[in-house]
């Protein structure tokens, strides 16, 4: 875990984001910026450190899945269907996560012969794959929810494009991170000048 002394603007460092779209946005924001603020805080360089990203993606996923359920509840008018869809979405996301954690992850570890308890990366991939599969199916149904499915798939595709771009920009991104102190592991006393 890397800790650096940073300023408010340095929160945009790409290494603090998980999804490629956000990492690209961070790089775009910082690449020509002059970091003027005082480095008066401790920043953790961790891929899941952004509240905007984590809350944004999480609640956008919840809203999207709510629309999917609402679209499938054909007997209800849309406002009521959305209301009913919210708890269904909330619970289903947890069921899907539990399925990934209790079934998929142990199976993968068994086949790969890699025991362990930290299944975050594995489950993240598995849950996202299940959501893409669900979106693909709903996008082919005759319901207004198919628009919610299309936007989900479009954003996934955009993220894949951003990841490709970042692959070609990886040296620039690494240079930016180095300039901002991203490669320095600093656990020095905060009182030091």
């Amino acid at each position: 875990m890397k800790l650096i002394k940073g300023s408010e603007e340095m929160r945009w460092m790409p290494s603090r984001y998980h999804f490629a779209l956000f990492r690209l946005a961070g790089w775009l924001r910082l690449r020509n910026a002059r970091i003027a603020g005082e480095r008066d805080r401790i920043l953790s360089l961790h891929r899941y450190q952004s509240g905007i990203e984590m809350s944004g993606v999480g609640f956008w996923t919840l809203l999207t899945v709510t629309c999917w359920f609402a679209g499938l509840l054909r007997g209800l008018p849309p406002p009521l269907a959305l209301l009913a869809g919210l708890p269904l979405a909330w619970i289903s996301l947890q069921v899907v996560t539990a399925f990934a954690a209790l079934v998929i992850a142990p199976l993968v570890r068994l086949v790969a012969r890699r025991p362990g308890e930290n299944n975050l990366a594995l489950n993240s991939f598995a849950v996202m794959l299940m959501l893409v599969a669900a979106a693909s199916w709903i996008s082919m149904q005759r319901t207004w929810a198919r628009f919610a499915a299309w936007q989900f798939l479009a954003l996934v595709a955009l993220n894949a494009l951003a990841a490709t771009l970042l692959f070609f920009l990886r040296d620039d991104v690494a240079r930016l991170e180095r300039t901002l102190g991203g490669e320095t592991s600093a656990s020095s006393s905060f009182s030091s000048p």
Partner: protein
Amino acid sequence: MSESRRSFLSRFGVYGVFWRQFLRWAVLNVPMWLEPVILAFWTALFLLWGAGRRGVSRNLRAILPGSRALPNFFRTYRVFWNFAWTIADHMRFQELRVVPDWEFDGLENFRRLESTPEGAIILTAHMGNYDLGAHLFATMSDRRIVMVRAPETDARTREWVERHHGRTAAEGLTIGFNTGAGELALDLLSALRNGDIIAIQGDRVTPGISALPAKLFGHAAEVPAGPFALAMAAGVPIFPLFIARRGLRRYRLFVGEPFEVVRSRNRTESFERAVRRWTEELEIAVRAAWFQWFNFAPFSKELR
């Protein structure tokens, strides 16, 4: 109901060990981008804990005079939400060494605390992330810090927490469990005289701990006597310190001006002055961040 069945069901009580085990499992399995959504759900579920909900609501009525029941219900959710995040952040740190971002207020006082050669007492509240703050200090400083905690009420949870704290505590950080009025006192006094820092939460009195009378938000309350007695006996300053959560894995640490518990002929007056100073700081901090004061029981008998 048989004893064994009661014992089994107690695991699922609010203070039961099941929730620690479940949180640990969740921290290792729930994708981080789903964490806000999952926590929002379980926070809403925990609002079913009537005693905690009512306790927070009553405290809010004292902190925010004139506040009404319905808005306070949503404010209570906000308190529960912040609490869920702080315990999740702490568990994530213990299991995965994920450290939050830190901002500082009162930096000059923080530096004084770090650089003073003598011992010192950090007096804090059940706000923000006490545990992570202590770990941060232990990591960033050469000073040895002893963090005093009240033991968990549930025996199984206590055993689980003590096992995990021992496994993942940072070097330079010792955790002492305050299980009785005098058990830790001599060790803490000795630590202070050796130049160590003692961190104690001074906003709640647990059963069996000696207390001093105080006034908080206009209501009669009690604060633990230990920090003030230690400060007087060892002749060390007390630094008020508060930690407030500012967002996802982002905390602000405020260190106030230190004060001393002056030794005089009139001990009662010395303690009263020090307690008044502490409660003034506490009131300012809690008023500014009421949504992070994790006091799930009424802080005053007058509020029950």
